[in-house]
């Protein structure tokens, strides 16, 4: 079913982009994403990938160029992190409004200031409401798989929305991991060539990006919201089809030891593996603890979430971004919202941890568990502040 190789996860991501036969890559260097585009650039230079590699002069132009190329019918790819995402964020909101199925890898990195090249989720949280389909991956294999899955989801005519793949910067991007690459024929069978629904071409002129007066704006946004909500079954279907090709299955919410759990850790991204280790330790101590991993962030998988929490009475929610002056981290905020109408809703204890690349270890999770159970932690706190 494919070769199994040890490689840097960034390179695995580039391999996946190559297997997708993308037509246009436009990107700007920023740590820790740069290895992905360097690799793609080498593929193009070596004739291994027949694409236009455009080394643009800023991230704003990277996404803008991809909008132009996607609108003209080309399968387009970009990736960025942190400040680059912030710079292109003006365009990020426009892409789903134009219904363009661009795929972007976000190597999650902290937003300045202070400047930090290290990993947290402040970048993706800053565009939470942008309208893209947003997924989190936990390890190198998931990065590789989801590039291909992302195009499958995005280009579906019942979806036609851009997809953002969140992979933790450095923790994933710069790690060597075992990756099972797919064969080109299998990827081609799973992901057919891009067929645009509307395209810029003189044979059939269209106008894209008209402006909307108040009388029409709400309806345009309603259409966009409906499109994002309606993508859910197609996301599931893309995962199901992927399972048939690869043997690997993915779900909007994934659980570990959660069936009889009284307490659940909730994580997104690579921390899930660490949390899983902590769950094993605690289970060894007889504690009824489990783990819930949110893979699909947008559209938020409310039903999968309710099913996954079962009868847990305590949710320890890991956030990796701060909403200054607000009620806590963004993920905990969403989860509290999701639980609001529930009778006997579980307690939500929110830890903001792992900011700017600060390590979150198995011990950290054990500490969080103990302080939650002992009632020392409640509501919202920043974990591990020194001094």
């Amino acid at each position, binding site marked *: 079913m494919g070769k199994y190789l040890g490689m840097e996860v960034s390179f695995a991501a580039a391999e996946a982009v190559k297997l997708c036969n993308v037509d246009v890559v436009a990107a700007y260097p920023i740590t820790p994403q740069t290895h992905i585009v360097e690799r793609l650039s080498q593929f193009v230079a070596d004739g291994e990938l027949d694409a236009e590699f455009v080394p643009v002069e800023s991230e704003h*132009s990277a996404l803008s160029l991809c*909008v*132009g190329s996607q609108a*003209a019918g080309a399968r387009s790819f970009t990736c960025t992190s942190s400040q680059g995402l912030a710079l292109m964020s003006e365009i990020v909101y426009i892409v789903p409004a134009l219904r363009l199925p661009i795929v972007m890898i976000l190597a999650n990195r902290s937003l300045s200031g202070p400047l930090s090249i290290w990993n947290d989720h402040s970048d993706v949280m800053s565009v939470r409401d942008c309208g893209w389909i947003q997924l989190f991956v936990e390890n190198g294999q998931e990065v590789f798989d989801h590039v291909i899955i992302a195009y499958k989801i995005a280009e579906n005519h019942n979806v036609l929305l851009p997809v953002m793949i969140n992979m933790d910067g450095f923790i994933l991007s710069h790690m060597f991991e075992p990756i099972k690459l797919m064969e080109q024929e299998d990827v081609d069978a799973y992901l057919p060539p891009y067929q645009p629904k509307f395209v810029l071409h003189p044979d059939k002129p269209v106008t894209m990006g008209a402006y909307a007066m108040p009388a029409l704006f709400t309806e*345009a946004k309603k259409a966009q919201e409906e499109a994002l909500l309606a993508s859910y079954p197609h996301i599931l279907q893309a995962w199901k089809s992927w399972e048939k090709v690869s043997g690997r299955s993915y779900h909007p919410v994934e659980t570990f030891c959660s069936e009889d759990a009284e307490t659940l850790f909730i994580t997104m991204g690579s921390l899930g593996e660490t949390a899983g280790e902590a769950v094993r330790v605690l289970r060894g101590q007889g504690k009824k603890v489990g783990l819930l991993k949110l893979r699909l962030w947008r559209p938020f998988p409310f039903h999968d979430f309710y099913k996954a929490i079962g009868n847990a009475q305590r949710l320890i929610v890991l956030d990796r971004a701060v909403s200054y002056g607000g009620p806590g981290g963004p993920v905990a905020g969403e989860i509290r919202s999701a639980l609001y109408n529930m009778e006997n809703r579980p307690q939500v204890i929110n830890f903001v941890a792992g900011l700017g690349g600060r390590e979150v270890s198995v011990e950290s999770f054990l500490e969080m568990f103990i302080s939650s159970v002992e009632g020392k932690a409640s509501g919202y706190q920043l974990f591990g502040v020194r001094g």
Partner: protein
Amino acid sequence: MRNINAYVVKTLSSREYIAPGHRACAGCGEVLAMRQVQKALGRNVIVASATGCMEIVSSPFPFSSWEVPWIHVAFENAAAVAGGIEAALKVLQRKGKIEGKKIFVAAMAGDGGTADIGLQALSGALERGHNFLFICYDNEAYMNTGVQRSSSTPFGASTMTSPVGSAQIGQLTWKKNMMAIAAAHGIPYLATASPSYPMDLSEKVVKAAKTEGPAYVHVLSVCPSGWGIPSDTTVKFGRLAVETGFFPLYEIEEGKYRITVDVEELLPLEMYLKPQGRFRHLKPELIEQISRRVRAEWRELKRKAEEQKEIEERE
């Protein structure tokens, strides 16, 4: 060039690519230019527009004036979007996914979307050598948002953010030289143009579109609303801008300068400036100061063009 009545425009295409019903002001020189540009480009073109007058007047959803494929994304990225369209056509034709016919790619922006907020994307696209044409429709201020100054606003002009007052004469800086900036990128073709000279504009747009690599055309777009002139004097002021030397019509082809509409004797600059509301406050000394610089720049341009003629004659 005084014999305006001798001008014959009938060799321009009669096909319209900008549908009527757009929301431009009466007498808008910019939409006049855009209509002429579109006639020159024909139907095999894809246009990427920046936010601005032309984008707004032509695309109030659910209506559109555009009879060619058109996209608007944001204010500062027309050149980047156009670069993307160009890259897509290149690779899709190479891969045999679409038919290999010639399709022009044109980016269009106002002076703000070119010289200010759009400068980075323009510079990047010119440097990368995309095969496209960038057209700046220069009405010398942010007109769509109500006449705020841009780096293209002429010295001494009064705008809402460079107003004339007891302590200030209006715009305090000289108009940014976009032709020099574009030329510094070493692109194969660039030109200034004016819709008051439709044949000159048309020839230049066709030349620019057919250029292999990046081309830049800077169009003076007379704006009666913003400049404070009657809406039926657009074409006249466009001619005065050229005839006073304020906006010379020239092209730079492979680095060679050529004046395409020569003026034997420049008209006095106040014929152009004084009747405009935005310049009405200018005292004679200031007009003289501006005139000196306009004439110096005109002489420098003539020198470059003469130098070029001499080189060609020698060869």
